[in-house]
C-alpha cells in the first residue's frame, strides 16, 4: 500500500512495518497530513523487500511480527549496504529497558511505545526527516 499525491515533487518516504492493520491505519492517519510518501509492509520479510525496492528515508518498525520480527529485520537491514543507513524507529508494546536495549543493539535509531502517542511519533519522525518548506 502506497499513499502518494499525483504530480507531487519527490518527497521523503517512510516505510511503516506492522502486522496489525489497526496499527498501520493508526500510523498512516497520524502521518497523513505530513509531507511524506507512505509505504507499508506487513512483516519483517516484506519490510526487507520493500526497503530494497522503495529505498525509504525512514522506517517505522513493529517488533512482534510473523515470519520475521522487528529486531531480526533491523539486523538484516543493517547488514546490507543499500539499507544500512536508513534510520529505523521501533514501535513496540514493550517499553521495558531490556527490550529497548535489544532494539538499539539490533540497530534501531529510536523507539516509541504503544499505544502510540501521535504528537510523540510526529516529533520523532521530524527529528529524522525535518519537514521542508514548500517552494515559493
Amino acid at each position: 500500500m502506497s499513499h502518494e499525491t499525483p504530480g507531487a515533487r519527490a518527497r521523503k518516504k517512510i516505510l511503516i512495518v506492522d502486522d496489525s492493520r489497526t496499527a498501520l491505519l493508526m500510523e498512516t492517519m497520524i502521518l497523513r497530513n505530513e509531507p511524506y510518501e507512505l509505504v507499508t509492509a506487513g512483516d519483517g520479510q516484506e519490510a526487507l523487500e520493500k526497503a530494497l525496492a522503495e529505498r525509504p528515508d525512514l522506517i517505522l518498525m513493529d517488533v512482534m511480527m510473523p515470519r520475521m520480527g522487528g529486531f531480526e529485520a533491523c539486523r538484516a537491514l543493517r547488514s546490507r549496504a543499500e539499507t544500512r543507513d536508513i534510520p529505523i524507529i521501533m514501535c513496540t508494546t514493550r517499553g521495558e529497558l531490556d527490550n529497548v536495549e535489544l532494539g538499539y543493539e539490533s540497530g534501531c535509531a529510536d523507539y516509541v511505545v504503544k499505544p502510540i502517542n501521535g504528537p510523540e511519533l510526529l516529533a520523532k519522525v521530524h527529528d529524522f526527516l525535518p519537514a521542508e518548506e514548500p517552494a515559493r
Partner: protein
Amino acid sequence: MIDQSAYILRVRQEAQQYARELLEDNRRLRFTIVALESENARLRDDLAKLRGEEERQRARGLELAQGLEQAEAESRERTERCFAFEREIASLSNLYVAMQRLHGSRDRDEMLVAIQEIVTTLVGSEEMALFELGADGNLVLVSALGVDAARWATLASGHGIIGGAAASGERWIAGQSPRREAVPGEERLSACIPLEANGRVVGALAVFGLLPQKPALEPADLQVLELLGAQAGCALGRAEPRGAASGASR
C-alpha cells in the same frame, strides 16, 4: 606740615581707590549671585522634570509588566487548549480507526482479530477475553489474547465481575465502578464492557492487565471500549464465517 598733608592726601586717595575696588567687587559678586540663583532655579526645574519622567517610566514599566503577565497567562491558556485539542483529535482518531476496523470486513475471524488489535493498539492491553452469550444464557469465550483460554472457556452469567456486567448490562471499570465479588482470575481485570446489539446484551469484552507503560485507562480509552460495546456486538452478529463473507472490504 607739607609731608603730613601729602600723606593724608595719599591715604585718602588710596582709601578712595580701595573703596571703589570694594564696590566693584561687590557689584561683580551681586551679578554672580544673580547668575547662580538663576542657574539654581533652572536646575530645580530640570530636576522636577526628571522626577516627573521617572514617575512616568515607572508607571509604564508597571503597565508592561502587567501586560507581560497577561500575555503569559493567555499563552498558558492557549497551550492548554492546544493540548486539549490534541487529546480530542487523538481520541477521535482512535474512534475512527476502531470503527474502520470493526466494519471493514464481514469476516468473523478478521473481526475478532480487529477487536484484539483495537484493544492492544488503541487501548493498551495485551490481555483480553471476548465472550458471547450462549443459548443457555452463559458466556462463551470466542476470542482470547494473553490469558488462559481454557480458564475462561465459559462463565456463568451473573457470577463475578464479567458475568455481573453481562447480566446487568453495566460496564465495570477498575478504580471507578463499585467493588464486586470477583471470581478467581478477575483480580487483574481493568475493565469489562457488555456488548450490545439491538438493545440487548449479547456478550462481554474483558480487558485484564494493561501494558507496563500504561498506568491506567484514560477517558479516551473508555470511549474506545464504549464504542466496542456498542458496535462490536452488532458487527459480530452480522459477521459471516471465513470464506462465506462476500464483498468484504480489505
